[in-house]
């Protein structure tokens, strides 16, 4: 069966510090991978999606970036965090039936 792991689960970072959130999928190959952000009291915002290694599309201009160094690994990064980057970050993978499967999320608080 397929599983998706996301870490760290929570982190508190000062403004201007770097960020790295990691997501790994097991039990499938060549998945579509996604990063979403969920701000407090708001819906899901698609940040990045990837259909393959080094094939990443950005949906929202921001100071975040994504990389996919391996088929089943998806990393969300920032060189300098802003207060507005606080939120709940969700990684997901998708397959041919169109549905998405989500990780447990990473809660980021920028102070």
């Amino acid at each position, binding site marked *: 069966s397929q599983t998706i792991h*996301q870490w760290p689960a929570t982190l508190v970072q000062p403004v201007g510090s770097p960020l790295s959130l990691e997501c790994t999928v097991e039990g499938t190959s060549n998945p*579509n991978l*996604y990063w979403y952000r969920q701000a407090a009291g*708001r*819906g*899901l915002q*698609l940040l990045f*999606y990837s*259909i393959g290694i080094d094939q990443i599309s950005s949906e929202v201009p921001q100071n975040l970036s994504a990389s996919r160094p391996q088929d089943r690994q998806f990393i969300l990064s920032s060189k300098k965090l802003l207060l507005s980057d606080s939120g*709940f970050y*969700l990684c*997901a993978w*998708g*397959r*041919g*039936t*169109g*549905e*998405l*499967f*989500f*990780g*447990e*999320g990473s*809660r980021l608080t920028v102070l």
Partner: protein
Amino acid sequence: AQSVTQLDSQVPVFEEAPVELRCNYSSSVSVYLFWYVQYPNQGLQLLLKYLSGSTLVKSINGFEAEFNKSQTSFHLRKPSVHISDTAEYFCAVSGDNYGQNFVFGPGTRLSVLP
């Protein structure tokens, strides 16, 4: 372009009462429809989906949703809710088999009161 509307941002309901969470979508192509549930501080879990076939789909915990093409709706219903159903519910639409055009609604917070 696709879009999803969930008119009710919050729905309070008493335990054992019925509930309906509304979802309407717009799309120029055939769609796949989904309901996801999110419990506090957790990721989203697939509740049920419509891909093709019977327009009435059911989950293992008593929820059901009906795809209505003429009304472009996919409302979620449960005849009797439990305290444990308290969560955020997201309706979503995908326009192809690859999930690249996956669009979520803004969510409805269901609060089940004792």
